């Protein structure tokens, strides 16, 4: 697959350190996504999973996409990492509809903006929630609708 990308889109993908996935630059993502979907040797027609992650160490947030092809029966994982301050990734909701709600979920919990998404708003949390809870540096708001939010987490672990 690496050779295929060298021909179709040179320099678009690099293999990750653990060798299980491809890293893609956010700016090149739409171009790569179209190849994944349309190339007759790839035909990734199914987006299995879309995961946001925050490793907490570097100043990056990431999204992992797990693709599967129903006809070719192969799989691929794509990882895109963006900086915490300007977390923006092009949306693929118009290519794989499954990404629609999943991108909203990542936006909701990690605060990554998906540009070009048809209806990007919070999905699991209330619309007026502050902050993005799954970020490692998240701090709970003090009050929600005048209700105090408990801060003591000693019994959580």
């Amino acid at each position, binding site marked *: 697959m690496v050779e295929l990308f060298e021909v179709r889109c040179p320099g678009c993908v690099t293999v990750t350190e653990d060798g299980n996935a491809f890293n893609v630059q956010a700016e090149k993502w739409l171009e790569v996504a179209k190849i994944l979907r349309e190339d007759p040797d790839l035909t990734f*027609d199914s987006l299995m999973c879309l995961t946001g992650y925050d490793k907490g160490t570097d100043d990056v947030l990431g999204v992992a996409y797990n693709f599967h092809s129903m006809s070719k029966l192969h799989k691929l994982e794509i990882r895109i990492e963006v900086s915490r301050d300007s977390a923006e990734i092009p949306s693929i909701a118009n290519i794989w509809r499954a990404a629609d709600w999943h991108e909203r979920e990542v936006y909701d919990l990690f605060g990554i903006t998906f540009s070009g998404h048809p209806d990007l708003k919070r999905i699991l949390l209330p619309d007026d929630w502050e902050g993005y809870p*799954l970020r490692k540096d998240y701090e709970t708001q003090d009050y929600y609708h005048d209700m105090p939010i408990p801060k003591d987490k000693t019994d959580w672990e």
Partner: protein
Amino acid sequence: MAEQLKDFSLLHSDEMVLNMGPQHPSTHGVLRLKIHTDGEIVSRIEPIIGYLHRCFEKHCEYLTYEQIVPFTDRTDYLAAMNMNDAFAIAVEKLLGIEIPERVQYIRVIMAELQRIASHLVAVGTFGLDVGGITPFTWTIRDRERILDLFEYVCGARLLYNYIWVGGVSHDLPEQFIRRTLEFLDYFEPQIDEYNQILTYNKIFIERTADVGTLTPEVAVNYGCTGPVLRGSGVKWDLRKTEPYAVYDKFDFDIAVGDGRMGTVGDTWDRYFVRIVEMKESVKILRQALAQIPGGDVHAAVPKKVRIKEGSVYSRYESARGEVGFYIIAGGKDKPMRVKMRSPAFCNLSVLSEIAEGWMISDVIAILGSLDIVLGEIDR
């Protein structure tokens, strides 16, 4: 006053927004549907979810791998064994441990019993949704017997914490195999009874055939899995196409919708796939109960789960479709990130697409055929 009138004039006089839920018997939990209608014809549906959000993924970051198992129970509370199993398999992939054959068989037996129990609720409540009350009492009566079996095995009837990382909590009790076989002998003829009272009932067919057709392309694009995908005629079942545990040792078929009462992928097809799947599960159970080997169920249970750096995406066929766990291990006894890919989440997202152009009463039938569990959608 003038301001108000100006606001009203912006509204389309022919579009009405109907709010269904979050407290509504037909939304199967706390789901709110914002239904945009033209007269009684649905033009668009906005499902609003999150009322049952319990921060499952955030909790996971504070818990050890063993402690997460009971939390997975509470995601899909109608198929808790499947969820335990899916999570255990994902962690075992990260650990790279081999599981004793007896444990694999026990897990298959539990998973299939749970699949039957979950489909019984799906079939029964679907009957309720379209106006048949008796089938519900019958299916719940038979599900009760499966819950009794679970209680016999692990003491719990709904949320089991039975399948552990590397094994199961208890070995099968002495009389379990005999009692399960007795149940299967009783249950198999019951499926034909459901068919007589509900499946081939003329009113039921009128309400469901040709309604809310989901084409295979749309289903795959929206990430639909399980009975919803198979109802559209796609022969896709992870137990067969990507066999895990010991599923490759059993002889069974994938149930697919064939448009027997109308179009392929209509509401009736999605319903009927579940009926056929229960029969297939009985087939698997009979084979598994006959072949089950001996062994120690705790042999591979690790004393302490501690995983080095790594990530895995593992998927599993639960009663509702593909459950995926994407786990990033951080080198500690707690995961750095757990994402649960919930099947009902994706299945529900297709609702607006297939309900468009149908009446409000058909929305109830279509939603019922998707068989959603809100605990799993909201997590």
